[in-house]
Every structure is written in structure tokens, then in C-alpha cells.
């Protein structure tokens, strides 16, 4: 290829070109996309469901507008009228300039929370189309640097934050010392393979300890895998199916190598949807195991009477449902069943479950430093919800949501701690041998 004038600030010729991006956009236009675009009635209800639009008031953040590049390609190349207009040269072209402008709309101002898809009166799955648009954005080289970094690290080091097994091993040693329990590693034939997210390992080490204690209490056969411990999928967030498939494949290989029956996705939203829903489509075949979110497993154990708790939290607790878990996967009642075990004063946010509001950090927004002001703006919706019911603490079950809640509440000087539901359950377990434990315990 002859040298082209540098367009996107990179002096060397980039492997990503507009042509390549357009091909990737086209490959995403399938039956549903065509049906969605032709049924859009321009009602604008999606704007009213989007925290990024509502909190900024800027109409460019209207969800359906974020799909304009994809829509233009559909209209120009996949409709009869568009092709006729094309013959006369009347179609608006998708250019590099346009995609540069849309990068902010498709990445910085969308957490793919899916509220727009839910409220759309004609049933257009807008967030799925944002996910599809990202395929074209990656292939044309219009991606925030933070997401590229996370993807490269995820593929090269096994963790989007560059975390290595030896760091995790140190943590395992700590947990084993403090609990007197063993953290099973590479146990072939275990019932459950527990996956983690780097953010949890670094920010919330309490999680792994909680799992260790709960599974010991309930007599669950489980293991970690040294081959793959990372459940998150940077490929889903950047929006590239090649990277996403590669990362899912690692989880599948680790699970197959150990011959486990089930894989547990950690307290992370997108990791769950990546492995549970997108995964088999990405790798093109069904799994020989089941996938659960940790909250689903805990609720199954509760229903089977294998979790015995004592005492209740007496302060006022409220719950933030992660979008990926509640809206996209229907895991809504499980966390409430678990809250009932341990919360004496539980108050729901006004809109919760499938109609909850996003924390504002998902879908790669939190890995994208440039998006910080938008991330804080979108959080104001959550803040208002929290202020309405005035809880003493917030409970959630996604490390990204939790970090965002903590940072956001801190930003607005609100003194409301945030806890993970799994840890909260672990704190209330009935001890196995109360008499002996009482002596040794401090």
C-alpha cells in the first residue's frame, strides 16, 4: 500500500482504515438491524431513558442518534431507495471525520445499559446496535485509547489491568491464613470453577475471602484455575468479536481442562453477559458446562437450605441492580431473596429491577479516562435515586458499579458506604462449631 496522508494523528500507516471499518459495519447489518431501523418512529423516547442525555440535556446523546453511522450504511446500501439514491450520488457518506465525531457518542456516552432498548415502543434493541457499531469503530481505528490498552493487556497478560497470577497467589495466601481454610486451585472435577475480575482482586479482596467462607460453609466443591482466572472481557467493551472470542475461549479451555460442571461469573456485570450470553455465539458452539453469576449460585444454595445465617444488618440498606445482571439477564429476585436473609431494614430504590438506572460506568466508560466528566454526569441519576430513599449503605454485586458508586458518592460528598452482597452474606454465616470457634476467636 502506498503511504497515505496521516489522518488520525498516527504518523505511520495504521492497519485500521475507513474501508476496513465500513466492511465491519456492513457485516453487522443483519435482519434484526434492518427491521429495527425500518421500524424506528422517531418518537425520542430513548432519549428520555438515557442517563447521559437526561443529565447533560445535550440532544446529541439521544441513543438512536448514536447509531447514525450504522443507519446511514444500512439506508444507503441495504434499502432499495438508498441504492437508487446512490446511483444519483445523493447518499450521505460515512467518513473518517464523521466517525471521529461519533467516537464520543458510541463509547464515552454509552454504557450499553440497555434502558433505551427496554423502553423503545417498537422494540428496537438500541444497545445491541451500539455494540454492533463498535465493531466498525474498532476496524476503522476510532476507539478510545483506554479501551485499546485494556484489550491489549487482557490478551497479552490475561488481565485488562495487567494483573498476574502471582499477585492473586499472595492474596490466596492471606485468605488461607486469616480464615484457616484452603482456597482450592486447579482441582480437576470440581463442581464449580470460580472466575474473578481483576478489579475485584485489586480493589475488593474481601470477595474471594467471602466465597471461600461461604463455599466451605455450604460444602460446595469448587476451584480456581491458574490457566485462566479473569472473567471480564475487554473485547466485549471495545466491541470486537475477535478479541472477545479469544478471551471467552480462554475461560472455556480452563473449564474444559478441569472438567468442571459449572462456571461462576464474579460480581461483575459484563463478565456475566459475555460468558453467559455472547460467549457461545462468539466461539460458535455450545459449552459443556453451565454458567451462573455468583448471586444465582448463592440463591440456589439458600433455596436448598445450604446457607444458614444469623443476625441481621439493622441499618437502612438499599440495592443497586447492575444493568447486565438485572435488565439484560433477568437476575432480579435472587439478590432480593439474599437481602431478606440479612437485612432488617431494606428499602428499594424507586426504579429497580429491569427498570433500574445505570451507574454510568459500564460498557467500557470506566476504562476510558476521557469519559470521566460524562461518567460523573450520568451518575447524577443514580445519586438522585439514592437521595430519594436515604439509605445508610448501598449494596451491589458488580465491581464496576461498586467502584462507580463509591467514587460518585465521594465526589458529591455523600457519606454512604457501598458493600458487595457476597461479603455481606459471608459476614452472617452461622459458624460450624460454635463452641470451639468461640474460644479461639477474638
Amino acid at each position, binding site marked *: 500500500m502506498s503511504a497515505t496522508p496521516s489522518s488520525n494523528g*498516527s504518523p*505511520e500507516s*495504521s*492497519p*485500521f482504515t475507513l474501508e*476496513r471499518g465500513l*466492511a*465491519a459495519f*456492513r*457485516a453487522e*447489518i*443483519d*435482519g434484526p438491524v*434492518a427491521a429495527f431501523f425500518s421500524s424506528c*418512529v*422517531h*418518537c*425520542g*423516547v430513548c*432519549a*428520555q431513558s438515557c442517563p447521559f442525555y437526561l443529565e447533560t440535556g445535550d*440532544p446529541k446523546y439521544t441513543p438512536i442518534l448514536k447509531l447514525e453511522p450504522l443507519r446511514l450504511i444500512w439506508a444507503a446500501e*441495504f434499502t432499495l431507495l438508498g441504492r437508487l439514491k446512490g446511483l444519483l450520488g445523493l447518499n450521505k457518506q460515512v467518513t473518517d471525520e464523521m466517525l471521529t465525531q461519533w467516537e464520543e457518542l458510541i463509547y464515552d456516552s454509552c454504557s450499553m445499559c440497555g434502558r433505551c432498548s427496554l423502553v423503545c415502543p417498537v422494540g428496537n434493541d438500541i444497545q445491541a446496535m451500539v455494540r454492533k457499531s463498535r465493531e466498525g469503530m*474498532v*476496524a476503522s*481505528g476510532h*476507539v478510545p*485509547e483506554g479501551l*485499546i*490498552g485494556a*484489550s*491489549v493487556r487482557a*490478551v*497479552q497478560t490475561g488481565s485488562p489491568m495487567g494483573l498476574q497470577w502471582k499477585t492473586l497467589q499472595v492474596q490466596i495466601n492471606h485468605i488461607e491464613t486469616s480464615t484457616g481454610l484452603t482456597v482450592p486451585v486447579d482441582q480437576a472435577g470440581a463442581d464449580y470453577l470460580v472466575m474473578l475480575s481483576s478489579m475485584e482482586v485489586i480493589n475488593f479482596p474481601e470477595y474471594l475471602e467471602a466465597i471461600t467462607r461461604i463455599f466451605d460453609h455450604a460444602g460446595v466443591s469448587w476451584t480456581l484455575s491458574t490457566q485462566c482466572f479473569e472473567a471480564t472481557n475487554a473485547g466485549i467493551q471495545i466491541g*470486537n468479536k*475477535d*478479541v472477545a472470542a*479469544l478471551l471467552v475461549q480462554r475461560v472455556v479451555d480452563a473449564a474444559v481442562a478441569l472438567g468442571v460442571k459449572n462456571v461462576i461469573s464474579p460480581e461483575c456485570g459484563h463478565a456475566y453477559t459475555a460468558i453467559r450470553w455472547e460467549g457461545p455465539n462468539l466461539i460458535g458452539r455450545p459449552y459443556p458446562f453451565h454458567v451462573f453469576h455468583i448471586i444465582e449460585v448463592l440463591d440456589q444454595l439458600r433455596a436448598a437450605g445450604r446457607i444458614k445465617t444469623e443476625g441481621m444488618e439493622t441499618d437502612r440498606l438499599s440495592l443497586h441492580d447492575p444493568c447486565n445482571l438485572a435488565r439484560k439477564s433477568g437476575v432480579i429476585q435472587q439478590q432480593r431473596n439474599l437481602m431478606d436473609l440479612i437485612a432488617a431494614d431494606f428499602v428499594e430504590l424507586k426504579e429497580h429491577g429491569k427498570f433500574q438506572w445505570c451507574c454510568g460506568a459500564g460498557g467500557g466508560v470506566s476504562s476510558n479516562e476521557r469519559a470521566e466528566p460524562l461518567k460523573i454526569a450520568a451518575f447524577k441519576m443514580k445519586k438522585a435515586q439514592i437521595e430519594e430513599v436515604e439509605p445508610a449503605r448501598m449494596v451491589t454485586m458488580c465491581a464496576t458499579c461498586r467502584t462507580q458508586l463509591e467514587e460518585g458518592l465521594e465526589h458529591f460528598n455523600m457519606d454512604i458506604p457501598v458493600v458487595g452482597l457476597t461479603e455481606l452474606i459471608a459476614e452472617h454465616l452461622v459458624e460450624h462449631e460454635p463452641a470451639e470457634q468461640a474460644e479461639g476467636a477474638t
Partner: protein
Amino acid sequence: MRVFEKNPLEKGLAERLREHGVSRRGFLKFCAATASMMALPPAMIPAIAAALERARRPSVIWLSFQECTGCTESLTRSHAPTVEDLILDLISLDYHHTLQAAAGEAAEAAREQAMRDNHGQYLLIVDGSLPGPDANPGYSTIAGVSNYSMLMEAVEGAAAVIAVGTCAAFGGLPAAAPNPTGAVSVMDLVKDKPVVNVSGCPPVPMVITGVLAHFLTFGRLPELDEYHRPLAFFGQSIHDRCYRRPFYDKGLFAETFDDAGARAGWCLYRLGCKGPSTYNACATMRWNAGTSWPIEAGHPCLGCAEPRFWDAGGFYVPLSVPTGPASDYLLAAGAVGAVAGAVVATKARGRAKEEAAVRQPVTVEELEQKL
């Protein structure tokens, strides 16, 4: 209802609403409902509110001809005191012979005065059909004046004409075969003024007020369909918005009015429901302050908002039973369409596959170069 109010153009709507105890919130809710019903973007809500607040009460003259007063009933029984009532209270209804207190010469004098005072600006609402110019005018007269002359005289100074109800819009029952009075619709006679048909027997009250709100907001009439009906309310068929539609799609039909299917709320298509060919807002707005509507009450749609609905076959005969001789060419056309559809679908699928093949997989080494 305030009839005969002198000097109707003094106060803005918002002020008058407040006098009637309607809160700002209630008013904005009405504006939001109006925006969504007319499929306007939510950003229009403040614009609607601002326009309505500024709006002066336009003079409205309501003429009733060969009608049953059902349309007036529909409007006035829209559950007092809703915002819709007040909106109506806040136009200046200068003549409506059912509602006004005055009678005889005083009533007619009020009409004539309103026509003089607001020449070229008043809205003319008509309910009921009327004997055409060639029919015997004696079939329907008011104060000794034939309906035809009264309409033509009133139309002359009107800004626009709103035909309320199927009789005024399409002739309705009086025009049904054999049409003994030679009844015609308003749009058969009025050619030089904009005509909006708010059809239905009777029409949904909110549709009448919606058209008025649109007029007050934008100073012009809403977008209309081929039958001059406002698209915002008549744009979709009853069938498409029917809550029983999933049963139709699954092929679950009530066969009689008292079988298990009817009790389970299945689709009424086989009992003669005209929902698929009827365009109106009943399925979305419902009746009696949103309480229910015919299909929800277990009765098929009669198709009352459509032209010639009285003569369009039996009410309880399914739509699929042809009213005239069956036409084979329709079947042939259907077959051609199916083949064409299959060809297009196959081509489109081929194209998607082609594109997927052209797409170049992304590698992490390439991504790294971007860093």
C-alpha cells in the same frame, strides 16, 4: 360550559386553567400526553405548553345537523372535570344548540354575531351529515334554514372546518343505503377550506381535544391521512395496537360470544372484528377516562371510524369472508409477492454473508500499534 361569553380573547390558557384549579403539573402532563399522542418528540412538550399558555380563546361555532347528539355526549361525558373539559371550556364556544342556554332567535343571533365578529378566524365544528344540494332541504332544517345553506354560510368565514363523527365525516348512518334523505358528508361540500375529519361513532373525546390543542399550539391543522383524518390518531389500525393481537398471531380465536376462548379473552376476528381494517385510537386511548373499550369489553370492533361502515357487510361476519365475488387474481398476486419476497430475502442473506467474508478480523498486534 360557558357559552355566550363576550370578548373571549382576553386571558391566556394557563391563567384560566389555574383559575379552574388545574395545577401547572397537571397542565404539563396534558401537554406531554398530547405530544406523545401526536408522535411529536418530547422536546416539543415545553413548546406546546408555551403555545397553549399564550393561546387566546378562539371562537368556535358548532353546527349539529342529521345527528344523534352522541358526538356531543362523547365529548361532554369525558369524565368531569378533566383537563380536556377545561380546554374546551377555554375556547369560546359561541354557538352549540344542544349546550347553549339560549333558544330560538337569541341563539341564532349569537351565531350570526360570532360569525361577524370573528370573520375568517373562527373554527367551525360540524356533527351530523346533511341533505345535499340536490336533495329535499326539508329533511333537516334549523330555524327554518336548510342545513346546506347554514353550512355554506358558516364555512365562508371559517378558518377551518372540523367534521366530528362519522356522519359529518363520511355520511354515516343517514347516508347508509338506501340514503332516503340524500345525505352527504361535510367534505363532499366544502372544497375551499381545510377540513379535518374526526371520525368515529362517536369519536374518542381526546382526539377532538387533541386536534384543538394542535391548532392552538401550531396555528395550523395536524397532518392528515387520505380521508382527512389526523394521522396522529388514525395512523395505526386497531388490530396493530390491540392487546388481543398476540392471540391472533397464535391463531387463538373466540368462535362464539360464550365459548371458552371468549372467556379467555382470545381474538375476536372470527366474530367479525373489523380491527384489521379500522384506523382509530381506541386501542391506545380507550374510553371513559381510559377505563375500557369495545374489544376489552368482549365485543368485536364494528369499524365505526371508517367510511361506509354501515354498508360494509355484516357486523358479525369475519373480514376474511368476501363481501363481493371472490377474486382469484388476489391469490395470484399473493403468490407472486411471496416468490418475490423469497428472492429478495435470499439475496439479502447472500449479501450479509459476502460482507462477513470481506470483514477482516482484528488482532491484538494491530490494536497495539494504535497505542
